[in-house]
């Protein structure tokens, strides 16, 4: 069998594979291809395409890239990574992009309007600031920055340049979260919220395979404190950002405890951390992030005197307290059973549609798109229109401060009091 045969795995990596197959497909579907050309242009967007580049094409960057190339009206024209295998992989996803190993050369290109940054945490601030200085709009992965000062510098640069700066807190665009937010805050389905519990539990080392020991810190940067703020930054910030958002509040204090207690493999960031935040009004949020047990994986749970709302990107569940009055629309809602209790399922719009008869406004939500795609679509929409993204520098700075202070509390063993100044740009 020849290596180029369709029975081999070459179809995944050969750069010219699609060219040949697309031509073959066009031959077979002549009618369809001609009609497609005649009826509408290949480009979905009526406007000039946005030319964008990506800096950092490792695991997360690749994921963003695979979604960015789907956004109509966007051309990915440049990919940058210092690690060649990652750069090569990105060119399979964006075959027409120019490869770079120095991000400053990418920023030199005048034709690029926007960049996606998915590099290790300690590089977010410098690269974002350089990009905005170079006149580019920026989508930067979360957490916003390695330090509070760096995050503030990014936010200040955004204000100075007027460029779009969007952070990758994708729960802000998730349809279940948007729906759950309304139910908690407008419909008050939990009554008065008094307690929040959230977790992200995994069972794994969080370590990536490295082909050569010299690349350990480059590829496993998440495990080393000089580059990473550990679990609170990489996992916790998604959820703490959501808690700040859902409670419409910032915490007043934090206590925490963490350690390197299981994965004693040379890492210098915690492999588990437990945190207690106090929010105004006596609301407490307990948060745990561990790497040795994945039972119940991840969720945020809002507990109130009338109900409990459990939210994940995939599903939202509402449990009413036995003493609470039945919601008018509850009999019509989609229900499920969880741990022997009946729950109302918040599946992106369905719960709302069930209550149209009650005269309430329907929330238009769309569960049919991947969150990564939706956040990038929103970013490029902001680039076109100047509209503020949902994950803006202000809210991202707040999440960054909230998470970094938990680390600080764990490291010092002290209860930390937040003050307004910490969150001010």
């Amino acid at each position, binding site marked *: *069998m*020849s*290596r180029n*045969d*369709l*029975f*081999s*795995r070459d*179809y*995944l*990596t050969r750069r010219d*594979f*699609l*060219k040949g*197959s*697309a031509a*073959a*497909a*066009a031959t*077979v*579907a002549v*009618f*369809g*291809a001609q009609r*497609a050309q005649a009826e*509408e242009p*290949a*480009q*979905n967007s009526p406007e000039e395409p946005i030319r964008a580049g990506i800096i950092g094409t490792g*695991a997360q960057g690749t*994921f963003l890239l*695979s*979604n960015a*190339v*789907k*956004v*109509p009206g966007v051309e990915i024209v440049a990919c940058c990574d210092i690690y060649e*295998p990652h750069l090569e992989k990105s060119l*399979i*996803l*964006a*075959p027409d992009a120019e490869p770079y190993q120095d991000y400053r050369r990418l920023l030199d290109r005048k034709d690029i309007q926007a960049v996606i940054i998915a590099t290790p945490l300690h590089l977010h601030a410098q690269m974002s600031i350089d990009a905005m200085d170079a006149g580019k709009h920026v989508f930067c992965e979360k957490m916003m920055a390695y330090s509070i000062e760096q995050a503030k510098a990014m936010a200040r640069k955004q204000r100075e340049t007027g460029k779009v700066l969007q952070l990758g807190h994708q729960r802000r665009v998730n349809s279940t979260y948007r729906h759950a937010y309304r139910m908690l805050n407008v419909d008050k389905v939990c009554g008065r919220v008094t307690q929040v519990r959230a977790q992200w539990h995994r069972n*794994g*080392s969080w*370590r*990536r*395979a*490295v*082909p050569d020991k010299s690349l350990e810190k480059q590829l496993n940067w998440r495990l080393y404190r000089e580059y990473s703020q550990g679990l609170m930054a990489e996992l916790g910030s998604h959820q703490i950002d959501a808690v700040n958002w859902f409670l419409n509040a910032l915490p007043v204090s934090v206590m925490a405890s963490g350690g390197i207690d299981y994965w004693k493999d040379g890492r210098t960031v915690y492999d588990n951390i437990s945190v207690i935040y106090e929010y105004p009004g006596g609301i407490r949020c307990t948060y745990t992030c561990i790497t040795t047990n994945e039972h119940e994986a991840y969720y945020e749970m809002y507990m109130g005197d009338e109900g409990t709302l459990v939210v994940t990107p995939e599903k939202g569940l509402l449990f009413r307290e036995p003493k609470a009055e039945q919601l008018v629309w509850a009999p019509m809602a989609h229900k499920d059973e969880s741990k022997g209790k009946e729950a109302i399922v918040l599946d992106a719009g369905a719960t709302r549609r069930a209550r149209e008869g009650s005269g309430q406004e329907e929330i238009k939500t769309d*569960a*049919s*798109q*991947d969150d990564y*795609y939706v956040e990038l679509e929103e970013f490029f929409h902001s680039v076109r229109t100047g509209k503020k993204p949902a994950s803006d520098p202000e809210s991202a700075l707040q999440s960054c401060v909230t998470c970094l202070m938990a680390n600080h509390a764990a490291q010092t063993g002290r209860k930390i009091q937040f003050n307004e100044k910490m969150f001010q740009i």
Partner: protein
Amino acid sequence: MTEEPASVLRFRRRAMGCIWELTLCPDQPDAPALAEAAFEQVCLAERLLSVFLPSSDISRINREGQSGPVKVSPLTLRALAHAFQLSELTAGAFDIACGALVRLWGFEGGEGRKPAQDEITRALKCTGRHNVMLDEASGTVRLARPGVRLNPGGYGKGFGLDLAMEALRAAGVQSALMHAGTSSVAALGVDSTGRPWQVGIRIPGQNEGRAAVLELQDGSLSVSGISEQSFSGEGRRFGHVLDPRTGWPVEREGWAVALCESAAASDALATAALVLGPEGTERILRGRGEARVIFYDEKGRPIREVGGGPEPGGARTESHVSE
């Protein structure tokens, strides 16, 4: 489905409605991280191709593709282009543009039902890769008419295995075995004893001790048979493997085991072989190198082996060893 040396590292993950299992040698450095990387690829395949995830590229194409071009991931485009080439090779015996038929017969997550012939005739008009246009320049997919649906059954799990194997190979792994449920398995190199990986084929309803054992080295193997999922009606049993050319379930008893390097291709080839039978399969594999198919009867007895031409390179799958 696999028989491994005594001391191995095993990792499991649920995806695409089944349990995936990766086996690595005990001395493999960074084994947990490699497993994570491999399963990430499986999840990626699911997110791109699953008809059960509304946000997957396939679901978006099925939903929006008749109204206009749908921009998809380049990887999806590659998978579709590959699957369509396999359709052409098998003269339509394997075809992922058969979602209309799959849904009509209730095999897309519903209960099986026998449709009327006029319903089948209508669904057949919406079947076939000629109803799907790929545009590489714009990275889009478009459906030619309303009712056309893609269904990656017989391809998607193999695609996930290919992505995972490619990730492991790129990370320098020389020895690994991964299976997707019980239908497809892919191997890198040999096992920790230096022998080709031993893969047992168990025929449902038969004594497990009578399983055939095949050797696999740098290749993939997929099994297709109609007793895996079926329903009965009007005194007949209807299996889940549909012939996209006639719109009816395949009635052939027994099993087809396909072997080649790519698991996506072996997945598709096993399905096509069940549709085409030994003679038809031999015709399409003539001159196609080492890809081959072994046919078993309903009791698990090997009937015939076709393909496996003399061209060098590619998958080095070893001969049938024993029952």
